């Protein structure tokens, strides 16, 4: 049976089912993309406490002021780097672009981590009552 024949032999119900399935797969593709892109974030901690959490897929520059120093974080093309820092050795700046892992500025007590934070994974709660 040729392809033409098989198309001709389908019923209306078959066609509706086909369209429905195409529809479902198309939307699940969109949904997966959406969910996956959401899963990564950049968390910036100052003095051991989470100060900011940003999505990795939105480009921006953030100025972070801590009690021991300050730095500027740039998020671009799903990567993160420190563009400016008040610390003397600038090790954090020299680390360049990071797509996974962390940039830690020890003198400034500021850390920038790429990946799901413990909070977003639901390991640690956002707050504790009691």
């Amino acid at each position: 049976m040729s392809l033409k024949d098989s198309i001709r032999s389908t019923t209306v119900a078959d066609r509706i089912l086909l369209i429905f399935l195409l529809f479902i797969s198309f939307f699940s593709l969109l949904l997966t993309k959406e969910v996956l892109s959401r899963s990564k974030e950049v968390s910036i901690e100052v003095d051991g406490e989470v100060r900011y959490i940003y999505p990795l897929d939105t480009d921006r520059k953030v100025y972070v002021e801590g009690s021991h120093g300050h730095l500027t974080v740039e998020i671009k093309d799903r990567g993160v780097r420190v563009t400016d820092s008040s610390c003397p050795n600038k090790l954090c700046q020299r680390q360049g672009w990071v797509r996974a892992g962390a940039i830690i500025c020890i003198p400034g007590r500021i850390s920038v981590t790429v990946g799901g934070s413990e909070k977003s994974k639901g390991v640690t709660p956002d707050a504790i009552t009691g």
Partner: protein
Amino acid sequence: MDTLVTIQVVAKRPERAEKAIDRAFAEIKRLGDLLNFYSEESELAKINRSAGISDVKVSPETLDLIEKAVSTSGKTGGTFDVTIGPEIILWDFAEKKKPDDGTIKERLNLVNYQWIAIDREKSTISLMKRGMLIDLGGIAKGYIADRAVEELKREGIVSGLVAVAGDIRAFGDKPDGRPWRVGIRNPRQSGRDDEIMAMIELKDMAISTAGDYERFFIADGNRYHHILDPKTGYPAKASRSVSVIAREGAFTDSYSTAVFILGPEKGLEVLRKMGFEGLIVDEHGKVHTTDGLRDRIEFKRLDS
């Protein structure tokens, strides 16, 4: 206010988040100053000083909060009662000394929420008996969390969480599209601090917990803690910890105290009647929950 407050907000720009957080903290400080039991300057202190003498003109927030307190008292048959002040001041948890039984009994004559006169028109409050004292410790923190959330919303914030100690109000979703997650502390920590017994997701809801482990001492094998039963003047014994979930922090705060005193059976009945959700760890450590909470709560393994 000697309380740890944390505020988390979701915003597109950090400046916007910082500004909203600053405004919310300013509101928290303002309310803390109005409602502070221990400050001579607070409106609450003025009401207490004028007990049995005159009525006191107060700000709308103080009036609103005391009205809510009286409402909880009415609906719990006086199990929650902010006029517990004269009993509270007898207890010194740092000194670990139990007050004299006779004095506790005597002061019960000063505890009755029905002797609070509220005049909405004139915006005044008065206490009818000399020596009466209002202590808002069981409701103010939840109310302040409510007001801080209102302030954040006024600043255009659509998602955030305010925690005034254990009184927490959350609104909106986190950036990953999920609700805020709140851990409920295990009332009998087996070692490390902040041990969590259960986790719950909150959206546009508040949660508060009343526990016998916050301020307490142990003497003669008895645990004496800060949640006093207004009917006896002694620490309530029916529960170890009670968490209540409802829309407003003022209610989760006050009902968690009331349900703690009532214990699991009557407590669950009150929660059902009010349409609130809750979790009770009773005096033996057994956990009771409202029906609606069962599927929404995630229990952690407990060693105790």
